[in-house]
């Protein structure tokens, strides 16, 4: 996050700092925890996965000669006698951004070693994620009920269903994994593993609040992907 202090090494800002960091020994990302660097590189790789999905979607949608369904109608809800376009999606976006905010605060309180706040905020994030997955399940079942299948749909191009289920499914899987880990990390926070430096199950590293930030990066990434899916799938 902020510049760390490193003995015998004068950290410079900006591009000259970048050149100096790169040319230095031991680490390239000064003060960045191994796990955090790993998560960043992993997310970079994951970005390419989602990019490939969205590029395929763009190519598929662009090449088909059958009319593409109007997302704002397909995903509209009929509430209180009015048709509201994209209502469910709007709420889902709201929920995901809310959970992203709580996660950001959890990271902050984690670094302040505020165990209670941090734990509760992670739990709130997890519940937000769970709500999101639940709403997605509702959306899927609604569409399936209306006859949308991966191989066909009553509204137009069959690729609509294919891409919808594949991309939201892949994103939903990411959210689900995130939720599982959020619950685990909430437990670990409350149990004080990060204060004592207790070792994890599969690692020789000692527990540290930086793990909250690592999980936070993943969670924000899931949110970030949703921003792109929202723009390209629902608004296009």
């Amino acid at each position: 996050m902020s510049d760390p202090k490193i003995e015998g090494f004068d950290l410079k800002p900006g591009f000259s700092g970048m050149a100096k960091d790169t040319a230095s020994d031991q680490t390239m990302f000064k003060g960045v925890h191994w796990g955090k660097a790993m998560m960043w590189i992993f997310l970079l790789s994951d970005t390419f996965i989602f990019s490939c999905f969205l590029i395929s979607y763009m190519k598929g949608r662009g090449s088909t000669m059958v009319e593409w369904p109007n997302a704002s109608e397909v995903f509209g809800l009929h509430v209180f006698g009015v048709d509201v376009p994209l209502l469910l999606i709007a709420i889902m976006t709201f929920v995901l951004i809310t959970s992203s905010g709580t996660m950001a605060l959890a990271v902050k309180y984690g670094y302040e070693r505020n165990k209670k706040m941090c734990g509760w905020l992670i739990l709130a994030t997890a519940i937000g994620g769970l709500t999101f997955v639940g709403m997605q399940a509702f959306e899927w079942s609604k569409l399936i009920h209306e006859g949308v299948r991966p191989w066909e749909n009553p509204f137009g191009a069959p690729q609509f269903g294919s891409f919808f289920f594949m991309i939201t499914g892949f994103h939903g899987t990411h959210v689900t994994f995130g939720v599982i880990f959020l619950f685990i990390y909430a437990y670990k926070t409350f149990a004080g593993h990060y204060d004592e430096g207790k070792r994890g199950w599969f690692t020789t590293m000692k527990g540290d609040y930086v793990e909250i930030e690592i999980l936070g990066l993943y969670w924000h990434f899931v949110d970030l992907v949703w921003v792109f899916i929202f723009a390209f799938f629902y608004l296009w």
Partner: protein
Amino acid sequence: MSDEYENKTGYQAQSSESITSSSIGSGVATDIDYVRPAENAEQDLYHGHSFITKWIFCQDAKVIGVQYFLLATFTGVIGLVLSWLMRLQLGFPGAAGFMTAEHYYQFVTMHGMIMVVYFLTALFLGGFGNYLIPLMVGARDMVFPYLNMVSFWSFFVAVAVLLASFFVPGGPTGSGWTLYPPQAILEGTPGSGMGIILMCVSLILFVAGFTMGGLNYLITILQARTRGMTLMRMPLTVWGIFTATVLAMLAFPALLVGSLMMMLDKLLATSFFMPTILKAGEILEYGGGSPILFQHLFWFFGHPEVYIVALPAFGIVSDLISVHSRKNIFGYRMMVWAIVGIGALSFFVWAHHMYVSGMNPWFGFFFATTTLIIAVPTAMKVYNWILTLWRGNIRLNVVMLWCLGFIVTFVNGGITGIFLGNVSVDVPLSDTYFVVAHFHMVMGIAPLMVIMGAVYHWFPLVAGRFLNETLGKWHFWLTFLGAYSIYFPMHYLGFIGVPRRYFEMYDSPYMTSAVGMNEFISTAAFIVGAAQFILIFNIIKTLKTGKPAGHNPWQANSLEWLTPSVPPEHGNWGEKLPVVHRWPYDFSVPGSREDFITQTTPPSDVKDSKVEKT
């Protein structure tokens, strides 16, 4: 569980807080040997006690590297046997009675996929990467040993699934290693049922496993180097593996997405890649998809994949040439930038595999230009290799022979690459045997030469004994001369116009003119294949009885030879991590007593030598 850790005093888990802890006095900087203190705390390692934790589910990167090496070699031997069967059919049609066209295409496919992904990629990155990275950058192990172990076992499962496809109804997929839809999942291609599904599953597992390994390699190189080890002091081996891993992390996603979508097309009848199709008089349930999309995804992965195989080879061969000609690598900086530049450019050239695929024809201009730009850094690397030999003091041992063989085959394959990259020259040659000859020469034989050279070079480190030199020379000459006489004439089949992937030519004029050559090529292929067993025999023989190597037998400079024990133990460095003072290529420095100065030699020890670059 805590008793399984070696809790040395001062050992601490690597964490952000420990970085800012202790402090040091200021007057130290006047010492010319001064290297600033460690940023990272010591790494805790899990030392296995039982046979299972030590040798099977092991977290030591060196053991994992050997595991990768052995499993990749095992699949490679399967690929080799498949290639024999193919050559048998091509050289002597009908000689293998059981061989039908279905079998032939299945063998072609599995041979290609095994060799490119499960053999070369796994061997270079999983095998050499795991073994050499921590040693060469001066780390105790990979940064996430547990993840590293899972990576290998994912690879194991991926191989198991791949091999399982030989035994399912319909056999393995026979769609060519490029797996182009629609034919990959339609009747009419062998193994279009279970075969292709298992192939996709296996690839997805491989990618998942490789991602875990790749994260390890990258973070170890970027964040866990020892004191004094800057990026520009790393051996080129590490640079090659590093860049290749970056490419893999960014290119494999496209393969994953492509495999997943193809599986959905097969299993759920989605139409990602499937347009309206008329098959045996019936319109299938597909419609509206684009087969070319798969090709773009595949080659967005596929071209970087070529460099995933080539770049580690470039790196390793640079080190071998430098050590065995007792001379620094010529133009180290240029070599590094060439590796990085080739890696970066490889994401902008993928469609040169698709010049005649029916994509937007105007892409030809873009991709021909970017492709030929890559020729410049690649040529620079070749120049630098031979300029390293120039005025060196060349030990003509087996390792050097493999390197020389690499240079010949690589330059040959690189030049034919310029034919195929130049769009209009590609038109008559693509999909002919010219292509087969080209890529076997440049990404089959050339990297294989490097692998063999690396095996002879690092075997004394891994096993503590030399491989037999005489057997090695037989192995080299049979392989090099044999492989060259397989693939050099094969280019000319392409000139005649013989297309790839033909089970048989019938009485076509192209066949009659090439019958003799095909017989010759097949015979050579059998000999070259058989020659590889010399290496296996050599390894088995010398593992117990070979000449003991001792410390640093090649008088090399890089860190992997400077471990306190040979072979290195878990944790690599004993009590203290090494401190690096120079680049790994200080050979034959004027004024120094010996013709090499190791990376850990402090400047005060070699005051008289005129070192130009550190």
